[in-house]
């Protein structure tokens, strides 16, 4: 339970008043209720000079920014929005720890408490509990423009007298009052004289509002006909669900549509970079490492950056309007049956584009168990990287029936969603057991979104993603490259012969064709002789019950880096590096054989592979992002293990079940 004693007694020496505190950077903790404009204010104060990390021992975002003015630097720590300091919730505990100086590197010298002018009575009670920490404090009143529209006016001087600390009216959106806020904050050196009232906190807050708020509707209003009508529509069981479906469809159409061009450009840029590296460096290991390991490894992840930026930009706009809280509320009825909160819907839906932004957007979910359950199951949702695999396998499964192929394609998406929700239900009843946080949401006031705030959120998320991609993902890519590049295998005799023959030809096209054939043979030999290939051969018996031979096992193993690699590996193994959309390539794959001469892609194997790729993890960047977002490799490995087991069992059941039903070769 919370230790409120820590907050009621001021520290023996208020940190802000010590001599050393005057010379070093001052640290100010920014706190307030959710939806009071705290983050907008933080962004206005610090702009892009903010960094995101995790608070020690938690996965809660710690955003830290700086304000440099008149030779003085102030560091602002943006604490999570909470309703009370003494709640038994992780965010409340974190704020208590921070105010009591128990968080290393986040010990504040002063407080900046944000209160919402449109909901002053409740916010003042929170402010009072924060002021009792005994730290120097400034209270900033936001949303005064919205309050003015409601007929309310705030007397900041009277409010300051009641609170015993400076009170400043400021607007994070327009910048109004920010200069005064910064100078007041820098001058705040003495502990707030928090009133020691003989009345209850609620009575005190009611009296303060009465004496500090003017206007004809000063006592507050509980009627807003426009909000009522919008809420009726947005939270209606049928209409609300339909509106949500439309909004989400529009969101993803826009993301796919707008992201397509930059993604193509990024792919081309990385391709050109890899070629440039190869031209610049002499042929050999270093060139292979940089071009194949580093550049291609980064390209496979960074190509999703446009999708991630667009998703977070649009989600931030939606959240700012107040709509997203209503949408979460509507979806809660469906999601709670699987042990997930309504807020899980957006991350799961986002995972259809790519699991990386999907997992990153689970930060919208306040409860840790709910959040972990959502992270663990998000990669079951069929992402865009699975599409090439689905296209290949469904077209091989139903080569002459487009309708069945289409239905199988849609079935993959349904199977993934069922697996995700079913797994969530299992996790919430076993390892993530426990009561979910009760679904009670504050429905914020509807307002126009702030483009500036959305852009800053996007930059912050993109930066986090890039740091992750540049460290963990790159390191693992290099390891995977090493496994497939070593030990070096001598070029096979036919490849050497082809190269020799190519040297004798005058026709450039014919020469290039022979060289390409030689490269394919060399690549195949390298793949077979490398550690990855040896691993493939060694574990082939494990995959035999699923119907996979040596070639398919190698393709499944190499696609662990990214599922779409399966298509590339298969085209290389069967002797082509052309586009999979090409009909000749499909024909070649359809007629490809195993070492014993039987068809490689018979109906049972095809169906088994399709089920395997719907359910298997097969995405290294996702694993790395899960580790980062969950704060531990334990959850990432559990995710990998669970998805692999589910995929294996389901693929086994498919292959053996079809065998029992008498399905034979294609």
């Amino acid at each position, binding site marked *: 339970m919370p230790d409120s004693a820590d907050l009621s007694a001021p520290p023996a020496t208020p940190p802000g008043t010590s001599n050393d505190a005057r010379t070093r950077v001052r640290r100010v903790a920014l706190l307030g209720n959710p939806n009071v404009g705290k983050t907008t204010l933080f962004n206005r104060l610090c702009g892009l000079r903010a960094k995101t990390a995790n608070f020690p021992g938690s996965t809660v975002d710690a955003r830290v920014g700086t304000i440099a003015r008149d030779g003085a630097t102030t560091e602002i720590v943006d604490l999570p929005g909470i*309703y*009370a300091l*003494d*709640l*038994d*919730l992780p965010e409340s505990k974190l704020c208590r720890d921070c105010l009591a100086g128990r968080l290393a590197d986040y010990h504040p010298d002063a407080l900046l408490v944000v209160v919402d002018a*449109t*909901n002053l*009575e*409740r916010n003042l009670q*929170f402010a009072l509990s924060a002021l009792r920490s005994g730290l120097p404090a400034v209270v900033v009143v936001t949303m005064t423009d919205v309050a003015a529209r409601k007929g309310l006016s705030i007397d900041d001087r009277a409010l300051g007298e009641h609170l015993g600390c400076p009170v400043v009216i400021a607007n994070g959106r327009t910048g109004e009052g920010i200069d005064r806020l910064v100078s007041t904050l820098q001058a705040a050196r003495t502990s707030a004289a928090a009133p020691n009232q003989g009345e209850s906190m*609620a009575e005190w807050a009611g009296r303060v509002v009465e004496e500090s708020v003017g206007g004809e509707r000063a006592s*507050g*209003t*509980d*009627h*807003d006909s426009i*909000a*009522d009508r919008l*809420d*009726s529509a947005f*939270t209606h*069981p049928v209409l609300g669900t339909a509106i949500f479906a439309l909004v989400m469809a529009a969101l993803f159409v826009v993301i796919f549509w707008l992201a397509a061009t930059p993604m193509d450009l990024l792919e081309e840029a990385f391709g050109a970079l890899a070629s440039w590296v190869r031209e610049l460096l002499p042929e050999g290991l270093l060139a292979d490492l940089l071009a194949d390991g580093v550049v291609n490894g980064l390209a496979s992840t960074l190509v999703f950056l446009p999708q991630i930026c667009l998703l977070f930009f649009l989600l931030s706009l939606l959240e700012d309007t107040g709509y997203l*809280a*209503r949408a979460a*509320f*509507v979806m*809660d*009825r469906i999601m*709670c049956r699987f042990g997930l909160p309504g807020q899980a819907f957006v991350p799961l839906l986002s995972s259809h584009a790519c699991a990386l932004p999907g997992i990153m957007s689970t930060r919208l979910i306040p409860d840790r168990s709910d959040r972990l359950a959502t992270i663990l199951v998000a990669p079951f949702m069929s992402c865009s990287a699975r599409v090439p695999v689905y296209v290949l396998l469904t077209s091989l499964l139903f080569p002459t029936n487009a309708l069945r192929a289409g239905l199988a394609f849609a079935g993959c998406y349904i199977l993934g969603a069922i697996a995700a929700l079913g797994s969530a239900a299992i996790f919430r009843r076993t390892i993530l057991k426990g009561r979910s946080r*009760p*679904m*009670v*949401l*504050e*429905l914020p006031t509807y307002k126009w979104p702030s483009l500036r705030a959305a852009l800053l959120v996007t930059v912050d998320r993109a930066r986090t993603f890039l740091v992750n991609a540049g460290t963990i993902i790159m390191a693992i890519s290099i390891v995977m490259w090493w496994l497939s590049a070593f030990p070096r295998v001598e070029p096979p005799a036919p490849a050497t012969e082809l190269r020799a023959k190519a040297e004798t030809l005058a026709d450039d096209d014919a020469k290039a064709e022979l060289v390409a054939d030689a490269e394919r043979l060399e690549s195949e030999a390298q793949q077979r002789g490398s550690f990855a290939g040896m691993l493939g051969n060694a574990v082939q018996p494990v995959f035999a019950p699923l119907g996979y031979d040596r070639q398919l096992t190698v393709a499944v193993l190499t696609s662990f880096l990214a599922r779409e690699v399966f298509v590339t590996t298969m085209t290389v193994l069967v002797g082509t590096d052309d586009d999979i959309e090409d009909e000749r390539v499909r024909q070649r794959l359809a007629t490809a054989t195993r070492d014993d001469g039987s068809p490689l892609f018979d109906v049972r194997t095809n169906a088994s592979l399709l089920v395997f790729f719907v359910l298997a993890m097969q995405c290294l960047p996702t694993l790395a992002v899960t580790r980062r977002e969950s704060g531990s490799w334990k959850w990432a490995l559990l995710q990998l293990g669970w998805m692999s087991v589910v995929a294996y069992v389901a693929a086994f059941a498919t292959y053996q079940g079809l065998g029992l039903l008498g399905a034979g070769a294609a």
Partner: protein
Amino acid sequence: MSVIPTPAPIRIPLTQLRRGDRAVVELGALEPDESKLLEAMGLANEAEVRVCRSGSMCIVQIEATRLGISAAMAARILARPCECHGIGANGKPLDGAECPVAPRASDVPASR
């Protein structure tokens, strides 16, 4: 002198109120951490609320705060309707007629 007992105030789950109804809520049936959270969010015990949406999902307004409460939680919040809107103090329909504000338990005089 005998006192005619006043009917006990009607208490119904929040989910049974209709849109536009006003009621005083009682959080006694909630877990302590749930009622503490609601109180911090502005919905204290004995607070008067206006129902913006009722049924399986509940949206209530308390002064300037609008809260969405899941059906599972709303079903455990008891409400004393401030205006009848068709529900009498004895819990029976009133054919749309208005009735006095339902008294609190503490207001009911003890019969001798």
